[in-house]
């Protein structure tokens, strides 16, 4: 009797120990990308789907209060199978609902991805369906799990002081840390933040091309991509939705996806350097909303 009780206690302690170790040592699922729906109910879109892709400035995980370093609206028109990526410089000066005029990256700090989506909806007039957010660590892990991303680097640069990106020009495969560094690099480019934003859009297109290439060789690759996202991510959308979006992505040719950065003029508000969105952007928003592509 005594032995049985002792065995039970030992088992209980062992179980607890395993649970504690598992909880603290295993990387948290929230370290990677977070996915979510912007609106609770379905928004009729006439075959157009818009996803807000956010890169936050958190070095680890996805803390509640972080700034948005990368802001892109991805659009797909399921009728024409064309798409577009609309890039917003993080210093864009906009009106954040409830907070007044501020840099667009502050919307994430004040109200999370939902407020950033709402801000962009007000600015562009486009109804955004989903958002996906990732921090430094999560982005790097995803690229590593996908075994790198091949893309064309427009010019050689050495950004050792800031992002750590040191790359030669031309088509090459970037590993996780290199991809992260390149996505962050701005000081070595004449366009600064605007060039960086455009490079981030290029990287999204490179990932799309990689998915499509792999899916053409073996369509079941999509499940590996979804599982990779699930491994690192926290979802606020069903697997079915993820699967359908994934199928769409495999069908979308990277050549049919335009990469456009919102035209801005640089200026100052007080001491802060900001980017004023040009009135010419209205025509881009209108076209993106109408066609779902750029």
């Amino acid at each position, binding site marked *: 009797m005594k032995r049985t009780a002792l065995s039970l206690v030992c088992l209980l302690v062992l179980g607890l120990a395993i649970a504690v170790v598992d909880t603290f040592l295993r990387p948290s699922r929230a370290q990677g990308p977070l996915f979510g729906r912007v609106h609770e109910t379905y928004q009729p879109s006439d075959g157009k789907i818009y996803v807000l892709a956010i890169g936050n400035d958190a070095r680890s995980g996805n803390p509640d209060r972080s700034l948005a370093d990368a802001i892109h609206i991805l659009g797909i028109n399921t009728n024409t199978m064309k798409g577009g990526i609309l890039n917003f410089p993080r210093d864009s000066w906009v009106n954040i609902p409830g907070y007044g005029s501020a840099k667009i990256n502050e919307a994430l700090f004040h109200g999370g991805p939902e407020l950033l989506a709402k801000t962009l909806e007000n600015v562009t007039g486009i109804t955004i369906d989903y958002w996906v957010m990732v921090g430094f660590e999560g982005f790097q892990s995803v690229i590593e799990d996908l075994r790198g991303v091949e893309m064309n680097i427009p010019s050689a640069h050495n950004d050792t002081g800031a992002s750590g990106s040191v790359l030669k020009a031309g088509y090459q495969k970037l590993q996780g840390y290199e991809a992260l560094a390149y996505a962050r690099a701005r000081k070595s480019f004449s366009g600064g933040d605007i060039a960086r934003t455009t490079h981030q859009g290029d990287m999204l297109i490179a990932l799309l091309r990689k998915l*499509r290439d792999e899916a053409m060789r073996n369509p079941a690759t999509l499940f590996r991509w979804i*599982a990779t996202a699930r491994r690192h991510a926290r979802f606020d959308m069903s697997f079915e939705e993820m*699967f359908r979006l994934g199928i769409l992505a495999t069908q979308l040719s990277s050549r049919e996806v335009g990469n456009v950065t919102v035209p801005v003029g640089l200026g100052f508000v007080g001491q802060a350097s900001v980017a004023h969105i040009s009135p010419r952007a209205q025509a881009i928003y209108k076209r993106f909303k109408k066609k779902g592509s750029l």
Partner: protein
Amino acid sequence: VAPLSVVAPDGRRLWAVAGIMLAFAVATYTTIAFLDPGESGRPGSSGAPGYRAQGPQQSPWKISVHGSAAHGRITKLQKARLERQEPRLRSVVRRIYDAVLIHPNRLRETLQANFTPAAGVALRRADVAASRPKVAATSVRRATIGVDVNGLKAAVASVVVRAAAPGAVRPVVHRSTLWLERGDRGWRVLAFEVDQAPLPERRPGKGAEPADRPGRRSKNKAGRADRPSDKGDRAGSHKGRRDPERKSRRGP
């Protein structure tokens, strides 16, 4: 003394019951084996149960099913679950292609049962049947099905069929990708992509490559133009189509 002479003693009765059961089992097995041609490839064989042998020669189905896991190996539990879904997936693929290529009169009911409404409408519009209204003969029927083992709710089938309608000059090579999801009504096709074109003619002296071999890329110019490639893209193959009979469709 037994009151009724027809009732055998207990031991004999047991043997009689066992004999009847055995005879019944043998009869049932024989009937099923006769009616269900399975994947044997007899004339008119659909590979799906319940179809009687009829029509031209059909090649046997070669269907492989594999699990797709992101990291590490597939666990025993996942494998066991996958094995349960295997016959269902095979059956869905066979049923769809039987309806598309061999039994066009069953297309409507098959689409209703095995496609989501939007995908069904898109397939009907795609007009991919090789033989309507006649029955085609198939010389290759091959499918590779990948299943997401993490949830067993999604699968993708890559299908290659070479079929010839009666009197056709050249057989048609039909390649497709079917995206399936599992819901309350079993596996259903959610989206598809079809590429169908007449088999290229063999060039004398140059051993023409069989165009229906999946994963094998022809290095000649024609092969490249035919195939989608995304340093470029799939849509490019449509633009560059040379054969007016070629059909490429996506749906829904």
